[in-house]
C-alpha cells in the first residue's frame, strides 16, 4: 500500500480528522459524565440503600408493628461552623418497635441580633439503615427561618420499616445544622 503521507507541518486526510473528532467527542462526553456522577451518586446510594442519607417525605400509612423487638434510636445534634443557634434534641433516645410511628422534638434558638436561616442535614448510622427510615414530618425537609432571639420546637415524625434487618439493635439519627443564608430560598 503506497500512501502519500503529509509532510511535516501540514494536516490533511479525512481519516485524521475523523479519529480526532471522535476523540474530542469522547472527551466532551467524559466531562459530561463527571457531572452526571453527581445525580448518579445519589441514585446509586438510594438504590443500594447506602450512604446514610434518608429519603424525602413519605405519606403516613398504617403498617404492621413488629412487637417482637425494640430498637434503641439515639438522636444527636451538631452545629456546623459558624452556626451559633442553640440546637438540641429534647429526648436523647427512644425505644421503639419497627413499624410504629413515633414523634420526637428538637429545640432551636437564634441568639443573634439578626434573622437567620438554618438547614438541618440528616445522617443515619449504620448507613445501611437509612433506607428503612421513613419520615412524614421533619424539620430537615425545609429550611428553618428564625428571627433574632426567636426559638421553637421542631418535630420529627418517623418510623423504622418492619423489614429492618434483625441484627440492627441501635440506630443513631444525627442532624447537623448549617447556616443556609447563602442558599436561602
Amino acid at each position, binding site marked *: 500500500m503506497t500512501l502519500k503521507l503529509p509532510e511535516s507541518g501540514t494536516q490533511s486526510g479525512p481519516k485524521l480528522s475523523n479519529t480526532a473528532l471522535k476523540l474530542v467527542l469522547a472527551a466532551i462526553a467524559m466531562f459530561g459524565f463527571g457531572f452526571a456522577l453527581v445525580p448518579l451518586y445519589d441514585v446509586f446510594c438510594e438504590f443500594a440503600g447506602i*450512604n446514610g442519607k434518608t429519603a424525602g417525605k413519605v405519606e403516613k400509612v398504617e403498617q404492621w408493628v413488629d412487637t417482637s423487638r425494640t430498637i434503641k434510636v439515639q438522636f444527636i445534634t451538631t452545629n456546623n461552623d459558624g452556626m451559633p443557634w442553640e440546637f438540641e434534641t429534647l429526648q436523647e433516645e427512644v425505644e421503639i418497635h419497627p413499624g410504629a410511628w413515633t414523634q420526637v422534638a428538637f429545640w432551636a434558638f437564634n441568639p443573634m441580633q439578626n434573622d437567620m436561616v438554618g438547614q438541618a*442535614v440528616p445522617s443515619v448510622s449504620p448507613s445501611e439503615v437509612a433506607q428503612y427510615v421513613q419520615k412524614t414530618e421533619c424539620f430537615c425537609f425545609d429550611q428553618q427561618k428564625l428571627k433574632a432571639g426567636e426559638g421553637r420546637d421542631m418535630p420529627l415524625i418517623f418510623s423504622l420499616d418492619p423489614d429492618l434487618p434483625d441484627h440492627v439493635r441501635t440506630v443513631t439519627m444525627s442532624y447537623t445544622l448549617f447556616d443556609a443564608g447563602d442558599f436561602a430560598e
Partner: protein
Amino acid sequence: MTTATANHDDHADHGHHGPAKGIMRWVLTTNHKDIGTMYLWFSFTMLFIGGAMALIVRTELFQPGMQLIEPEFYNQMTTMHGLIMVFGAIMPAFVGLANWMVPLMIGAPDMALPRMNNWSFWILPFAFGMLLFTLFTDAGAPNFGWTFYAPLSTTYAPSSVTYFIFGVHMMGISSIMGAINIIVTILNLRAPGMTLMKMPLFVWTWFITAYLLVLVMPVLAGVVTMMLMDIHFGTSFFDAAGGGDPVLFQHVFWFFGHPEVYIMILPAFGIVSQIIPTFARKPLFGYASMVYATSSIAFLSFIVWAHHMFTVGLPLQAELFFMYATMLIAIPTGVKVFNWVSTMFRGSMTFETPMLFALAFVVLFTIGGFSGLMLAIAPADFQYHDTYFVVAHFHYVLVPGALFGIIAGVYYWLPKWTGNYYSEKLGKFHFWMSFIGVNVTFFPMHFVGLAGMPRRIPDYALQFADFNAIASVGAFIFGFSQLIFLFLLIKTILGGEKATDKVWEGAEGLEWTIPSPAPYHTFAEPPHVK
C-alpha cells in the same frame, strides 16, 4: 517528468532549509522534535522547582519543632510540590518523550496534528506561571494538598484557589489535546507493514496512556468546575448545607486520580521495555503478554478508585469490592516484572547508564508495588492510610519508578537527539548518587509511617525524629545529584564523541535507522516494515 523534477527540487530546497532562526522558531514550531525538546526542558525546570519545594519541606522536617517556616507556608509547599511534580514534571516529560520518539518509532514524518501540538505545549508555561504566581500573593498559594479535598478546598480555601482551578483547566486541555494527537498519529500514520502488534512497546504504552488521558482528564475538569461553581456561583455540590456531599468530591476526584497514576507509569513501562532488550541483546520476553497486561492494567484502573478512600465510611460491600479489584491489579503488573526479568535471563548484558536506570526501575518500582499491595488490604489500610507509609509507596513508584524511567529514556535516546555520546562516567556517577539518594530519602518513610506518623504535618512527635533526619539528608543528596544530570545534558548538547546511527549494539527499531543527530525532517517517505 517536469512535475516530478519540480517536486524533487521543492523537496530538496525544503530539506536543506533547516529550522528557522531565533526565538520565533520555538514559538511557532510545529516540528515534533522541537516540541519534544521544549516539553523536556520545561519538565526539567519544573522538576527543579518542585524539588526545591521538597527540600524546603525536608529541611523543616529535619528535626522536631518549627525551625524554618510556619505551618501555613508548609502546607503551601507540600501542595505545590505535589501539583508541580505530577502535572508539571512527570506528565510533560512523558509527553516530550512521546513527541520525540513516537513518530520516529512508527516511521511517520511528524505528529498527525502538528499545530495543535504547538498549542498543547505553549499552554503549559502559562498555566504553571499562573499557579506559581500565587506563591507571591498575600493569600498565598493553594494549601489544601495536591488532592484538594472539599470543603478545605472550597469553603475554606484561600483566594488563590481560583487561579489553581484555571491552571488545572489549562493544563488539562493541553493533556487532552496531546493525547488526541498521539492516538490519531498512531492509528493513521504508521509505516506500511507496521501492524499494531509490531509496534514498539513504548508506542503501545503511550497509545493506551493516551486513551486514559482522553477519558479521565475531562473528569478532572468536571470536578474543578464543580469547585468553581461552589465557590463563586452558589452551588453546593460538595457542601452539605445545600444538600451536597464532601465525599462526592472524593469519588469524582479519585475516578480521575487513579487512572492518573497509571498515566504516570505506563510510559515508563514502555521505556524500560525498550531498554532492557537492547542492553541484554535479547528480544523482549512475552511481547503479546506485555501488551495484554498493559491493557488489563488500564481497564482495571477505572474500577479501583475508592481504595484511596477506605476510611471515609464506605459501606462494607463497596469496601470489599474495591479491595478485591485493587488486589487484582497486582497480577498484570507482576506479569510485566516477570517478563522483564525473563528478558534478562540468558541474555548478554552490558550496563550502560540507561540500563542501570532501567534495572533500578525494575527493583525499586517493584518495591513500591509491594507496599501498594499491602495498602490494598483494606483492614490493614486503616493503619496505613494518610501516614508516611503511603508517602513512601507513591514516592517509590513515582521517583525510582516513573522518574528513573524518564531519565533512562533520556540517556537512551540522547545520542540520537544530539548526535553525541554522553560521558558514561558522568552518567554512572549521576546514577549511583541518585540511587543512593532516593533510597536514603524514601525507605525510612515506610518505618516512620508504620510507627504512626501522619502525612502533611510540619512537625512531629519525638520518636519519629531519627528517620526523618535520615530522609532529609537523602533528599539533599538526591536533589543535588540532579545537577550532575543538568551538567551532563548541556555538556553533551555542546559536543562529545560522535554517535552512530544505531548508537547501541543491541538496539532495534526504526528510530535507529536514521542518522544521529536525527535530521529536522525524517521519514518524509515512509519506510517499509517487514
